[in-house]
């Protein structure tokens, strides 16, 4: 039985990764999960310099999900390269570093720096709804998507995965723009912009007013977008948005994702990733699937 998948030439032992920002750089969750069992660890977004993030409260629970406006707090690329990459290198898993920035230059700086590091993939977050500049602004305009993708491609030595925002009229337009810019793969979806109001205190539940909706609630939107994109471009897709169970992960794979990321589910089940790795194997065995490639995009 083969569960290996190929993302832009990088071979993962299995298609299960974690979603950026929900797993730190793996250290905290390594108390619960054997990181060697994951297809890849995807790190929290890292910028050229440390970012303090947004004021608190940064999160609020919603029905079947949560909204977050962490605001990409991160230690900056220096500390990250010194501390987090060496930590992850001790494991038999692939490393995908998530990159954020406010300007094209910011992104370029981080990508240039990472080009020299022993990491496997870069995921470019052009879709964070929680920062004023950069982030989503890039991800909602196909010209901007193409431009930044091609800038980063010039600098990266590893494959570049563009992470798309669901807050758009037509996700395939953004996917095609990333493809045109030379992207090696696509990650989708990032969070959907949402808001919660505390009716008793008559204030916004998160200090940033809006936040990104994630968790099981958004899964149908994510599956739809993965399906649409899989039928619009040739790039490998890393699917995410509400994955908590084996069935969830399989939905994305059947819709066309080559790999999947588990995000918010880590918060309510720190063992979710490894359970899904095992669950996919069981499903393949039960359904006599020799190679996971048979499942990718199998529902048309």
């Amino acid at each position, binding site marked *: 039985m083969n569960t290996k998948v190929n993302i832009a030439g990088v071979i993962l032992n299995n298609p299960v990764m974690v979603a950026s*920002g*929900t*797993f*730190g750089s793996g250290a*905290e*969750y390594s*108390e*619960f999960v054997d990181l060697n069992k994951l297809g890849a660890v995807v790190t*929290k977004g890292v910028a050229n310099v*440390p*970012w*303090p*993030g947004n004021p*608190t*409260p*940064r*999160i*609020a*629970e919603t*029905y*079947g*999900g*949560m909204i*977050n406006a*962490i605001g990409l*707090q*991160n*230690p*900056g690329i220096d*500390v990250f390269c010194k501390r987090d990459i060496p930590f992850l290198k001790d494991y038999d898993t692939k490393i995908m570093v998530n990159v954020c920035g406010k300007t094209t230059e910011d992104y370029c700086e981080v990508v240039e720096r990472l080009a020299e590091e022993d990491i496997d993939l870069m995921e470019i977050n052009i879709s964070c709804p929680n920062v004023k500049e950069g982030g989503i602004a890039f991800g909602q305009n196909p010209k901007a998507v193409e431009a930044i993708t091609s800038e980063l491609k010039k600098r990266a030595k590893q494959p570049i995965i563009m992470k798309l925002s669901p807050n758009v009229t037509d996700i395939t337009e953004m996917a095609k723009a990333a493809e045109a810019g030379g992207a090696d793969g696509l990650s989708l979806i990032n969070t959907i912009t949402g808001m919660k109001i505390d009716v008793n205190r008559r204030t916004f539940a998160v200090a940033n007013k809006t936040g990104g909706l994630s*968790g*099981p609630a958004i899964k149908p939107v994510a599956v739809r977008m993965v399906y649409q994109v899989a039928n619009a471009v040739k790039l490998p897709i890393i699917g995410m948005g509400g994955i908590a169970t084996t069935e969830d992960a399989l939905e994305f794979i059947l819709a066309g994702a080559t790999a999947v990321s588990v995000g*918010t589910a*880590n*918060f*309510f*089940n*720190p*063992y979710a990733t490894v359970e899904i790795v095992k669950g996919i194997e069981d499903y393949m065995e039960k359904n006599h699937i020799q190679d996971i490639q048979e499942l990718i995009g199998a529902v048309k």
Partner: protein
Amino acid sequence: MKKKEKAVVISQECIGTDIYSLWLKVSFAEDAKPGQFISIYCKDGSRVLPRPISICEIEKNALRLVYRIAGAGTREFSALAAGDEIEVLGSLGNGFPLEEAEGKKVFLMGGGIGIPPMLETAKQLKADKRIIAGYRDELFLAEELEANGSLYIATEDGSEGTKGNVLDAIRENNLDADVIFACGPTPMLRAIKAYALEKNIPCWVSMEEKMACGIGACLACVCQSKEVDEHSHVHNKRICKDGPVFLSTEIEL
């Protein structure tokens, strides 16, 4: 070692208006420390985030929690009965630094639903303990606290002890201390921090913030800190991991 597991309810009792005392059998009880907390998960899948609740008492294989119904999650917990199972993650956070207070004159100050962690703290701490508990009106845990130190009570409505807050109780009773451990609502902690600064005594406070992971990974639960934090080097300490107990001068309140 932190663990997520199915805890078994040993017993649950309503000990005040909307206040419940819950004993849970958990495998990690022995490693727990006073001032730490655990995350409890709802059975209703529409609520995906954990509810952090402080540890009120520790036994060999069991933890006691005392909580107030604050919303749908704690309301769900209040229906648990002996034998029921519930998912928990623990033990989390650092706990009170008992070694800083050992043998000294210490205030253990709890306000409202911040009182429960003071019980195990009082039980484990070998020191000259003055427990100051601030209630709105109705008392809970008072007898058990009294058994573990000299108890001073403040009530907002003056129905018992000093009328006012925990600091009013200190003043009315002319109390003093070398160290403070405190847990309660932010305005109370802010006032205690000011008092500690004025008296020039070290003071540790237990902080609250909305949490997602509970283990330091998601950066939801930060508070501003004087020192750069270990994680992001940006003066944002994580309450779930670097805290919930902080030296009061170390954080913004």
